[in-house]
């Protein structure tokens, strides 16, 4: 492969790894910081992707689509034709986040007062429900045939051959903004309260924290981030159908990323996304059974179990954070048994 080919392959890889890093950040808010067990990431993934796909595609031509009725036409209304800039992308991204946030609000409101694992079962239900709706309601999103011709953001600025490099920058900018804001928010007293809830719900409640409200806010926040991820994904692949969001590549792989990178550490989540996605795409070049997709499927599960057993803190692990007045050696002394 020549240099240009390699560079374009690597940028394609980095775009997907960056999008997965967004999901890993969202999952880190859920699991790493609050201990919320979400096994239906695929549901939020699909909701985010479909929201932006529906809003931005042009109203369907009856000759092209028999059943699909709705296309938001955002590109025409908020695009270069009217405003001179591609403002629609931002609107679509926010809408994808908002839809995921609303669904998370509803499900969280029902389940977060109850046992911890009820949330897991409910998120499993969301993933399945979202999949079934998009599969069966042909008028909504063209059923199993899926939606195509999802527009490119800033598509006319650069030649299609080099478009990936531009989109990589877009993804990395969104990722950086999300990383900085998530870090800031989680370092605030609000974030400390989440950690307190994760460690010991009873004592957090005893110190006057409204555990349910904090959990609900955290669940919604993580889901909004996942919605952004879904939207970024849709404008990259520019095609969505219900099969895109199977549990393996839309839920399990993201769990493996967070567990490997280090839950409770946002940099770890991003690192994990790049490492695991690197292993995932890299192993397809290996000889024999090592490149078998089913073997890689098995390895994803194995990686999660191995991380829990052998290195629960992941590659980076969570940083210990103490109040500024406490000197570092006092903390070390306190850690001694």
């Amino acid at each position, binding site marked *: 492969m020549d240099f240009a080919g390699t560079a374009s392959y690597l940028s394609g890889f980095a775009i997907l790894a960056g999008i997965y890093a967004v999901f890993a950040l969202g999952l880190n808010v859920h699991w790493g910081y609050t201990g919320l067990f979400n096994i239906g990431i695929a549901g939020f993934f699909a909701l985010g992707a479909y929201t932006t796909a529906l809003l931005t595609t042009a109203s369907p031509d009856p000759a092209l689509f028999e059943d699909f009725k709705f296309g938001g036409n955002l590109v025409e209304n908020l695009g270069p034709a009217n405003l001179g800039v591609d403002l629609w992308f931002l609107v679509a991204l926010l809408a994808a986040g908002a839809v995921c946030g609303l669904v998370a609000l509803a499900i969280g409101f029902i389940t977060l007062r109850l*046992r911890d694992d009820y949330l*897991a079962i409910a998120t499993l239900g969301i993933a399945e429900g979202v999949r079934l709706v998009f599969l069966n309601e042909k008028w909504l999103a063209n059923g199993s045939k899926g939606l195509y011709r999802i527009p490119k953001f800033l598509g006319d600025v650069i030649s299609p051959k080099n478009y990936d490099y531009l989109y990589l920058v877009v993804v990395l900018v969104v990722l950086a903004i999300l990383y900085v804001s998530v870090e800031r928010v989680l370092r605030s007293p609000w974030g400390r309260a989440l950690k307190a809830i994760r460690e010991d719900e009873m004592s957090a409640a005893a110190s006057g924290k409204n555990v349910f409200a904090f959990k609900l806010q955290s669940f919604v926040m993580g889901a909004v981030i996942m919605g952004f991820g879904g939207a970024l994904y849709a404008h990259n692949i520019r095609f969505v159908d219900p099969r895109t969001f199977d549990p393996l590549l839309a839920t*399990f792989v993201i769990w493996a990323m967070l567990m490997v990178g280090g839950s409770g550490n946002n940099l770890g989540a991003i690192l994990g996304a790049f490492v695991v996605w690197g292993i995932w795409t890299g192993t397809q070049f290996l000889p024999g059974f090592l490149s078998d997709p*089913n073997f890689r499927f098995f390895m994803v599960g194995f990686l999660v*179990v191995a991380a*829990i057993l052998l290195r629960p803190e992941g590659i980076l692990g969570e940083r210990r954070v103490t109040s500024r007045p406490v000197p570092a050696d006092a903390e070390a002394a306190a850690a001694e048994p």
Partner: protein
Amino acid sequence: MTERYNRPPRRWGAGHGVLAAFLVVLVLAFSSVIKMELVVNGLFLGMIIALGAIGLSLLYGILKFAHIAHGDFMTLGAYTGFFLLGNLFPRLGLEAEGFGPFTFGYPLLLAIPLVGATMAGLAIALDVGVYRRLRSRRVSPVVLAMASLGLAIALRGLVQIIWGGGTEQYPRLSKPFYQLPMGVRIPPDHVFIGALVLVLVLGLYLYLTRTKMGKAMRATSDNMDLARVSGISTERVIWWTWAVGAILAATAGVLLAVFQAQLFPIMGWRFLLSLFAAVILGGIGNPYGALVGALMIGVTAEVSTEWINPTYKPAIAFLILIFMLLVRPQGIFGEKA
């Protein structure tokens, strides 16, 4: 199960509600408002759900975590049966289909105990290799559930490595359906499934109430510490619980493959939502409740196809679950915490 003793008598209990609901369904079916055939089919589907849900509920009660790999235990059980019936047995000369009115042959009766024993062994091995280590670290139940998610992925990956991702079938001969009054047509296989489930449930009831290990299991489910101080080896109880849960799940997997006349790797994962819905409906840790919950979900899902697109059947369990979490999160037979 504890609170049964020293409880003031109640005039109207959950049992009456279930009985009333059952009578309403019967009256509606006999007056042809809903199709009797759907009710009957729903009961058979519910019986398969019950086998998985009873084991899941026992495990939930004793180990205190949501065993997410339970659906994939079913898948692996079904595929182990496929190996025996389609590969090993024919080599040994044990090849027969169409036994009596059934599509399958007598080798199935041989395969079920073997599959059960294999899965019981695997479940205990996984407990020793994974869950026991985590228990000794005193991790929270959600981490155990995480580990079971990893194992669920790994098990399905294993199934796909060995048998591929496609759809398979047990050796079978097509047979005419039974024609019963009120337009009910049922395949003879369903009668076998129903009879086997009844035998297993009855056996489990006798095991839990008459044997020492069964009683120890109930005691451990009620209060593990109390069970331990009264001399029960809780580790052994846990092993037996894994064995019972795995045998039931494996049988459910084989029966599901017979029921739907095909098997595929994601069948168990798709079934998981129904299993959890049945467990929560009946009250966590209550095997009889899980049985009732499973039958209710089976019947509701089948009857709903009269008005709702049948492809939404898996989502019905989710809707029932959400309704239950809103109205009575402790389950029909659960006590308010």
